[in-house]
């Protein structure tokens, strides 16, 4: 059985849905980060799959951009998580709502 592009896309969709659901239902900031990573990588898979399918290299180039952004996001995000945790141990994402309008 050959693994066709559809499978990749389905995998991508499944991973994205898991990530999105996790982001919405989990309250631990670290887990939420992982979920965001999951979503980003799901998108990366679909980029690569479609790039191969369409024989277009720009799909893979887009993945590089996404990776860079994800790395940056993780650097800043983790720094924030550490800073928040120093201040308020065991804080969930819902506790940090001081910026509400």
């Amino acid at each position, binding site marked *: 059985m050959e693994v066709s592009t559809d499978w990749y896309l389905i995998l991508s969709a499944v991973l994205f849905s898991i990530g*999105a659901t996790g*982001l*919405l239902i989990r*309250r631990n900031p670290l887990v*939420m980060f992982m979920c965001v990573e999951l979503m980003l990588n799901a998108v990366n898979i679909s980029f690569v799959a479609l790039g191969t399918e369409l024989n277009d290299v720009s799909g893979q180039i887009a993945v590089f951009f996404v990776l860079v952004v994800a790395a940056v996001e993780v650097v800043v995000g983790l720094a924030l998580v550490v800073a928040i945790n120093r201040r308020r141990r065991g804080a969930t*994402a*819902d506790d*940090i*709502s*001081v*910026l*509400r*309008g």
Partner: protein
Amino acid sequence: MVEAAWLIPAFPLAGFLLLLLVGPKLGEPRSGWIATAAMGGSFAAAVTTYIGLLGLDAHGDADNDRQYVQTLFEWVPAGDFQVDIGFLVDPLSVTMTLFITGVGALIHLYSIGYMHGDPKFSKFFLYLNLFAFSMLMLVLGDNMLLTFLGWEGVGACSYFLIAFWFDDEANASAGKKAFVTNRIGDWGFMVAMFLMFTTIGSIQYTDIFANAAGISESTATAITLLLLVGAVGKSAQIPLFVWLPDAMAGPTPVSALIHAATMVTSGVYLLTRMNGVIDVSASWAPTTIAWVGAATALFAATIAVSQNDIKKVLAYSTVSQLGYMFLAIGTGAYVAAIFHMITHAFFKALLFLGSGSVIHGMDNDQDMRHYGALRKLMPITSATFIIGWLAIAGVPPFAGFWSKDEILAFAWEENKLLWAVGFITAILTAFYMSRQVFMTFFGRYRFADVRAEELEELAAMKVAAAETAVTEAEAGIGDAEAAVAKATEKLEKASEKLVTREAEMADADAADEKATEKATKNLDKARDGVEKAQVAADEATTAVEAARRAVSAAQAQVAHVAAASMGSGSLEFDLFVAPDLGDIAEEDLPEAARARREYHPHESPWTMTLPLVILAGAAIVAGGMNLPFASDLHFLDHWLEPTLVHPAHLTSSASVKWILAIVAVMGGAIGIAAAVMIYLKGRFPASKVELPIMAEGWRFDESIANFMGGPGRKGFDLVAWFDATFVDGAVNGVGRVVREGGGQLRRLQSGLVRSYAAMVAIGAIGLIIWFLSRASF
């Protein structure tokens, strides 16, 4: 040479700035001399420009007929709307600048003498220079907006100067009245300007001249009428003339400069400037202008007949003469209007300055009833004033005759009824000006007279004295009666004693003679006492009666005085006979009256008389600018021709013109003769012509006040209510909707990252659904 144009307004502006910075430090009289020098420099620049303009070809190609535009810098560059600070130098603007700066410089010089001793001396000259600058911007501006800037500038200066002595409430409110009334006119000017821009896309005069012929008739009519509204406000025509008589509250040089010679003529200037637009408007538009002018001329002249304030007469006279100029414009005789404007500037400035000189010499008294016989006391003032009088009354060969005659001739060709109104006005003009001259410079010297209000005061004092006397006499009666009663009692007692004695005497033969004698003596004494008491009582009664008579006499006098002063205001006063003082002694007179007897009216200093002499010279010869005898003598006609679309010319035959001129002279003679009969010879009482309703200006002002206070007020309240409810409501409503909407929306920002993420997810899903629904598979 024409490049000197920018210097014309620059000089007064420099003077204004200099006085603004160091005016109070310079003080009197140096700040006055600086202002005068600035005006002199401006006049020199105007003359230079004039000579330069003469050098330009008068009959070049159609676009360059003696026209020079000097652009200093861009002022309002806003898309298609382009306005520069620039000057349009052409015969019309140069004519205006020449007489504005010339007459202005003379009036500045005059003010140095007139404002002597005023604590706000330098401020006065600061305002005068600012006014001159604004007025020159008005006439020199090369676009309507710059003219409007000057238009508002002169309005503001007019306000400052009318209310110059604002310590007095009346002066301050006169200034406000002028300002507010002018705003109505300014509205017309502004809308006309907007309409001009939307129609031809420019408000530059050169563009207007070039494109005026292409404006549609209805638009041109609208612009003309709106400009008329503006001109009616500034030039004090019916119905907006009410501010000008009140404007006399300002110092007299201001009345001469702003409210006679220059500012009030700017309406005439504006209409002349726009003659190309008036030319294409519907024919009834200029007719309206002519009738507004004619009606104002007659209306104001009738009011002037009954005024007693020397400046009020001249104020109404100015309104009336401006009416002549509007009449000329309405008949298409722009040159005649400008001609009359110039001659009027000379002789009316002269008359105002002369009246200022009289007021100055008469201890600030402005009531002509208090003048008389000043001819010998103020020789220069009276000689120059008489020249001004002859000029305005239309006596040839003085200036006013030529210009007024030309206007009347044009009116005759337009409409005989217009001519008739103008002619009657000419008679009235001659009459009221003669009245003024006779009351001021001829007749009996009345300044030292005891005045009606003083007589009234005296009579009141007499009544009070008589009443005191009555009270005293009545007290005396009481005393006398008491004395009589006492004496009668004594008499009775004495008679009783006498009777007793006589009985005793009868009893005792060997009468005690001594006792009898004593009794008789007592009796006599008692009788004497009674007689004396009765005499005293009689005397007291007589005194009381005399006192009562005195009281009723005094009361009658009071009633007489009061009745007189309740009437027209001129009944009590008699031009020819001094008031009867009766038994009032010299030293009983009020202090003010005694001070006046000591006062000696004096001629003014040379700074005041020199301008009078120069203006008088101008008032004599200014008619030479435009003599009707031959085409070569129509100097002003030829000079202004390039600025007019259709220069009007009289078409009547020479004989008709001669007859009209002779009739006009006769009209002036009738007016003067009537004044001679009434005010010099006293053949008829003045009350026959000075009707009270005319003295009150036909109650025009009062009616406006009543209307505005009554139904007008309700209308304004309605407008104010509409404004507060709907206009403000709409604005505030938008604000409220945004604020409350924002209040609701801010709940979305919960600070919960996961809810944001949910919103993003929902949005993404929504987008996908939308794309899918539009996609075709």
